[in-house]
């Protein structure tokens, strides 16, 4: 996973114009953030990146980059095993 892939997946999930979301965007300030897109985010991380991040962990992520770090940390054991 790289930042480009991650940002593209977020743009698709939130259905926003390209360039709206950046690495330093505040996660919960993304246009359209709601209880429903929160569930969509968990689904997207599971489907696209094969990780299950606990909702509490996601809420502790301030920026998109913080979340990306969590995804990388969570997927590392699998990547190493592979």
């Amino acid at each position, binding site marked *: 996973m790289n930042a480009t892939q991650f940002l593209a997946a977020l743009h698709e999930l939130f259905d926003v114009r390209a360039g709206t979301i950046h690495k330093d965007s505040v996660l919960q300030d993304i246009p359209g953030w*709601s*209880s429903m897109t929160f569930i969509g985010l968990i689904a997207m991380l599971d489907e696209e990146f094969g990780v299950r991040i606990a909702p509490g962990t996601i809420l502790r992520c301030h920026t998109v980059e913080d979340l990306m770090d969590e995804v990388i940390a969570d997927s590392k054991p699998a990547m190493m095993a592979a």
Partner: protein
Amino acid sequence: MQAILKAIEYYLPPRILDNPQLCEIAPNWSPQKIQSKTGIQERRISEEEELSSDLAVKAVTKLFESGACKPEDIDYLMLCTQSPDYFLPTTACLLQHRLGLRTSCGALDFNLGCSGFIYGLGMAKGLIETGQATNVLVVTAETYTKFITPTDMSVRALFGDASAATLITAQEPFDGSVPAIGPFVYGTDGRGAKNLIVQTGGMRKPVAGFASGGGDEDADEHVLTPPTLYMNGPEIFLFTLDAVPDLVAGICNRAGITFDDVDLFVFHQANEYMLRHLRDKIEIPPDRFYVSMSHCGNTVSSTIPIALKEAHKAGRLKTGDRVMLIGFGVGYSWGATMLRWAM
């Protein structure tokens, strides 16, 4: 003799809450967005004086009127509800009288949510196949909307009120090699209790105001707080990602089947977005995965019988078909079974 599912009827209260109405409460949402994220177009809302027992009477009366059975045939009634009329007596006892069932009929309530229909089938099969009963009514009825704060969109967009009545009856096996209902897989994890809960109204937190103030708002040492539903949707979703694939694998293993042996998959209709994700994750063929919730929302323990009824009406089920039923949710509680369709 073996237990078979002979008939299903369901009832929805007439009052509709549709997506444009919801958007009046939450202007940052759009009807299309609610539809795409939940798969729900409208939910039905019980009137203030319309209780689970009233919905149940309507559903069971439809069953009697369909000719599937008569009141005097029923020798056991079980009601699955988390919104009973009273702490006591048992709402099923009230139903026995209102439905004109005989006094030699057994009756009980059981408190489960989204997994409740599976558990009801399990108990009904047990009663019938041990010779304790011949015609068991499994009734599911909920008025969750009475627990919902009008502005809490996370639950208001999802839940609707409904009741379903299912007749389980003793019959000679029509295919000795495959049970008409079963096998079963069950599961429970009380660690998830806090994620879908009505905290007040029980003994731990009785509703403030009734005891000392008698409901008088001027008695300001207590604020009247009606029992309110709290749902942590993301945590519930994460739970389903963990539990449901294993549940599906578990029932396949216990029944000795593969997906090729299943004609239709009917999951608890929680939220279509979540269901599609689970379907793709488990790799269930979309054409054999049935969803029917756009007209009524998540009706808790009634979603599976409603979907079965709709699938039957739509010609998606024929006699002898094998159907996988998967229930999961509040508790956490989950369960799965297989049906050999007998209608």
